C-alpha cells in the first residue's frame, strides 16, 4: 500500500471545474501550467475527463445552474478522489454572497479537502494547495 500512496503523490491529475465564478481563479490555475510555474514538474497534469482525474479543482461559488453538473462530475471520478476549492468564493461565496443564483459555498455539496484562499490566489498558492491535498491521501 505504501508504494501505491507514493505513486498517487507523484502523479496527481487534476480536473478543473469552474462552478460559476469570475474566471480569474481559472486563469491563475492555467497560468500554473505555463513556463513560469510549470506544475508538470510535480507530475501534475490537467486532464479533461472526470474518469482520468484524481483531484477535482473547483473554482467559484456554486451557481444553481452548475450544481447538478458539479455533483455529476464528482460522482464520475474514480476513487480515491480529492476536492480542492480554489478562491474565496468556494469558501464563503465571497463577494457574491446574497446573489440569488448562487447556491454555495462548496462544502454544502461535497466534502472538501483543501481550500485555497484568495481572490484570486496566486498560482504558487494553488500549487501549494494541491500539494497539501496530497498529504491527505
Amino acid at each position, binding site marked *: 500500500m505504501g*508504494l*501505491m500512496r507514493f*505513486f*498517487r503523490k*507523484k*502523479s496527481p*491529475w487534476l480536473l478543473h471545474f469552474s462552478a460559476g465564478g469570475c474566471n480569474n481563479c481559472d486563469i491563475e490555475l492555467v497560468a500554473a501550467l*505555463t*513556463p513560469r510555474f*510549470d506544475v*508538470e*514538474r*510535480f*507530475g501534475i497534469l490537467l*486532464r*479533461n*475527463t472526470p*474518469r*482520468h482525474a*484524481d483531484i477535482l479543482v473547483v473554482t467559484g461559488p456554486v451557481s444553481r445552474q452548475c450544481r447538478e453538473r458539479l455533483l455529476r462530475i464528482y460522482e*464520475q471520478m*474514480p*476513487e*480515491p478522489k480529492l476536492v480542492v476549492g480554489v478562491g474565496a468564493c468556494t469558501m464563503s461565496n465571497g463577494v457574491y454572497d446574497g446573489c440569488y443564483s448562487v447556491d454555495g459555498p462548496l462544502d454544502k455539496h461535497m466534502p472538501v479537502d483543501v481550500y485555497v484562499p484568495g481572490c484570486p490566489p496566486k498560482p504558487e498558492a494553488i500549487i501549494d494547495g494541491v500539494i497539501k491535498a496530497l498529504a491527505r491521501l
Partner: protein
Amino acid sequence: MTEALSFLLAYLIFPGLLFTGAVSLLFVGIDRKIAAHMQNRIGPPIWQEFFDVGKLLGKEDITPTSAQSTVFTLAPLLAFGAIVAVMLLLPVNSAQPALVLVADLIVIIYLLNIPAICVMLGGYSSACPFGASGASRYVVQLFGYELAFIIAALAVAVKVDSLSLSDFVSYQAQNGWLVLDWRLLPALIASLIAIQGKLLRVPFDIPEAEVEIVHGPLTEYSGPKLALMRIAYDIEILAVAGFITALFLGGPTPFNIGGVQIPGVVSFLIKCLAIVLFTTTLRCIAARLRIDQAVRFFWTFAVILAVISLLLVI
C-alpha cells in the same frame, strides 16, 4: 518443453513485457521531458510515466453502465497483448528476432494496427459521443497513414528482396544502412510522417484532440484499463520506432568500444530513441491539422514520396 519455456521467457521478460514495458515507459518520460524543455518548461522527471501508470493501476475501475462491457474490457487487453507480440517479432538484440516467422513483415504491419483497432472498439463501445467521434476519426486517419506506411515498407522489401525483418538487418549489415541509399530517402520521409499519424502525435493527434472531443476513444476509460491502454500506447511507440530502425537504420548492430563488446540491444535502443525524439520535435513545432487536411496530406504528399521510392528501387 524448453521451446515453450523459452517462448514464455521471451514473452514475459526479454524482449517482451518486462523489458519493453520498462524501456518504453522511460522513453515516453524522456519524450515528455524534452517536449517540456522545448516549451521552455522544466517538465516532469523522466520516470514520471512509471508513476502515472502505477497510480492508474491502483485506481477504481469504472465501466459505464451504458457501455458494452465485454468489448470495453477486452479492448485494452487485446491491444496490450498484440503490441507485446510485435516486440517478439522485431530484431531487438541481433538480426534474429525472438520469434521467427516466414514473412514477419506482413505480420508486424498487421499487429501494429491491432492497438489502433482496439482503441476504436473501446471508443465505440463506451457509448460516449466523444468516444464514438474519436473512433470514427481514428478509422479515417488509419486509412490515411497506413497506405503511405505500407508502400514505404514495400519499397524496402523490394530493395532487399525479402519479406523478413532479419533479412533486412543482415542485408544492411553487409551493404550499409538503407537510409544512406538516396533512392529510399523519400520512403524514409514518408514513413516518418506516417508514424507521426500512427502514434497520434501533433499535427496528427486528431482522434485524441482534447479541445475538440476530450480524450477521444479513451474518454470513458479509467483506472487499470486506462493504464493498460497507456502502456500499450507507450509500447507502440517503441515498437514503431524499432520497426523503422530495422527498416532503415540497420537494426541492432553490436559494436566495440575499447575492446568491450556492446550488445546489439544498446544500439537498437539508441536508434529508437533518436526516432522517438524526432517525433517529439515534430509535435512541438506544429499545430493540429483537421482530419480532412491530414488525410489529404497523407494521400498526396506521403503516398507520393513512398511511391517514388518504390518506383526507383524496382
